[in-house]
């Protein structure tokens, strides 16, 4: 027993101190499908930083549901940087005094180094002829999405349908709510998460259309084969941002401000942008966008800021208890 315990203790210690050889360790707390992007990005940054400063930086990654991750940071998870997929999650850290109020101005492009859009995934040959949002809400169409109240992916779908309806002739908040209500009636279920929605649609064969991030479509192709589905770009869709921010309180405590800032800035470098593009996220760099044009067809997009006046506002109007989502279900 004793040698085994010793070994177990040794493992424990190595878990805690395993990074002792690096000069600096950064913790990047991120949403759950960001692994591929940062798994490729971290070595790029390490190399760049080492040639620039001679310093070995080790980057640890933490992945999980976006809101859960941010709550963990607020409750004491010592993340130097947060790289998220919803601005209101970062706003929460502002409220807790962990992130600077003007975080969105500290980096270019609203502090979002890359973007994506919401697209339709339909069955091969598009048998239900789903071209636009009105087709998704048509009778007899089954829609698969993650829970609109509890997942970022589902919220984006909800808001995009709302915005589309708002921009139709004679569109108002009232008509938009009716339209979204009709659309949600076509959902036989709300999946637990983005990945679960994909499994339900692709593997369990449920539904006629799945709505998800453009970047996910490539992941789906990787796992289920490209020929098994088609991607449809609706007439209007959301440009989803992936905001990044420095956790001021942590970098001050750990003395890692310089490295953490460098880590985020480098996301906008040629290498950082190219890495995003290779992971099917739309780079901000116009030249690269042109280079990868075949993966990123031009679409008409809107941002949450333009239509809803910011992520926090959109969130409280639609997804807080008693918001428009609840009204659709309860006020009948």
């Amino acid at each position: 027993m004793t040698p085994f315990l010793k070994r177990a203790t040794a493992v424990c210690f190595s878990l805690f101190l395993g990074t002792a050889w690096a000069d600096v360790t950064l913790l990047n707390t991120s949403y759950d499908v960001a692994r591929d992007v940062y798994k490729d990005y971290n070595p790029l940054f390490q190399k760049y930083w080492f040639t620039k400063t001679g310093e070995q930086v080790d980057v640890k990654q933490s992945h999980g549901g976006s809101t859960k991750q941010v709550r963990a940071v607020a409750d004491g998870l010592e993340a130097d940087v947060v790289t998220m997929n919803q601005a209101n999650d970062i706003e929460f850290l502002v409220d807790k005094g962990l992130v600077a109020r003007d975080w969105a101005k500290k980096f270019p492009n609203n502090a979002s180094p890359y973007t994506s859009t919401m697209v339709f995934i339909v069955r091969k040959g598009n048998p239900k002829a789903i071209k636009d949002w009105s087709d998704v809400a048509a009778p007899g169409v089954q829609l698969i999405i993650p829970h609109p109240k509890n997942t970022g992916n589902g919220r984006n779908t909800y808001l995009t349908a709302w915005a589309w309806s708002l921009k139709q002739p004679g569109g108002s908040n009232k008509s938009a709510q009716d339209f979204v209500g009709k659309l949600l009636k076509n959902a036989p279920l709300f999946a637990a998460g983005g990945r679960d929605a994909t499994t339900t649609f692709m593997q369990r064969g449920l539904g006629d259309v799945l709505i998800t991030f453009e970047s996910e479509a490539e992941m789906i192709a990787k796992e289920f084969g490209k020929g098994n589905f088609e991607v449809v770009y609706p007439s209007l869709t959301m440009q989803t941002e992936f905001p990044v921010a420095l956790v001021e309180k942590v970098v001050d405590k750990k003395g890692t401000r310089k490295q953490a800032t460098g880590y985020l800035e480098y996301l906008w470098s040629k290498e950082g942008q190219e890495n995003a593009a290779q992971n099917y996220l739309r780079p901000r760099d116009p030249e690269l966008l042109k280079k990868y044009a075949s993966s990123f067809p031009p679409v008409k997009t809107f941002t949450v800021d333009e239509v809803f006046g910011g992520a926090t506002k959109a969130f409280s109007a639609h997804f807080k208890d008693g918001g428009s989502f609840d009204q659709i279900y309860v006020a009948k």
Partner: protein
Amino acid sequence: MAAKPHRLLPGFGLALGYTLVYLSLLILLPLGGLVLKSAELGFGQILDIALGERSLAAFRVTFGASFLAAAINAFFGLIVAWVLVRYPFPGKRFVDALVDLPFALPTAVAGITLATLYAGNGWLGRHIEPLGIKVAYTPLGIVVALTFITLPFVVRTLQPVIEDIETEVEEAAASLGASRWQTFVKVIFPAIFPALLTGFALAFARAVGEYGSVIFIAGNLPLISEITPLLIISKLEQYDVLGATALAVVMLGLSFVLLLAVNLLQWWTANRHNNAEPLEVAAGKASGVST
């Protein structure tokens, strides 16, 4: 047994003291913190949260499905435990090992796997759906997931107790002329009933709090297949920690009352059984011979 010459056995103070300290530190202190936190909201607001249309529907779904799942497990679990203890058959060890699987499998994996099995094109769903029974993404799916998750409780609570039944008692009943069925009803069942009730209560309690597996198979439609833990998560997604704790405390209160009732019932049956009816007497009864 009430007023016997007091406590012949040693260790009562030590055992109870340790139990209480450990219980207080690990369970009562944290749960007390939870209750205190929710008290910040005030009683009226907690009631508002708990009595909303969606909350009420969720409570109904959660407790209803949990009860069904626990009942299914009580019935089948008794049979399984009996078969595992009493009957020899090839591969018994493996089957015995399998019973713990629901605890070892992360709940999310269980949920994903069950949803895949019971979906319209799954191994099981393919045969069930033509019969008009939809399991995946309906409240029935919740019952299936909860049955899976709580399966080990009844079996594992009963196994040692059944092992402990001395065959002498059964033989005594038999020698007094009881049929097998009489022996079971009058001798065996009363002996294992407290354990069965315990297993049922544990399965029920565990099912009520389950989240990870259920959300993958439930469908999560508001008012229809939404469970209370999902509403708690929903509040957390809104950074509404207070609302989440309020809902959690209400759930905790309900479960506590139910568990307490079951435990009292169990205590009552156990005492009645132990005091008034030693097994030998029961054996005589089972045979119809009055003692």
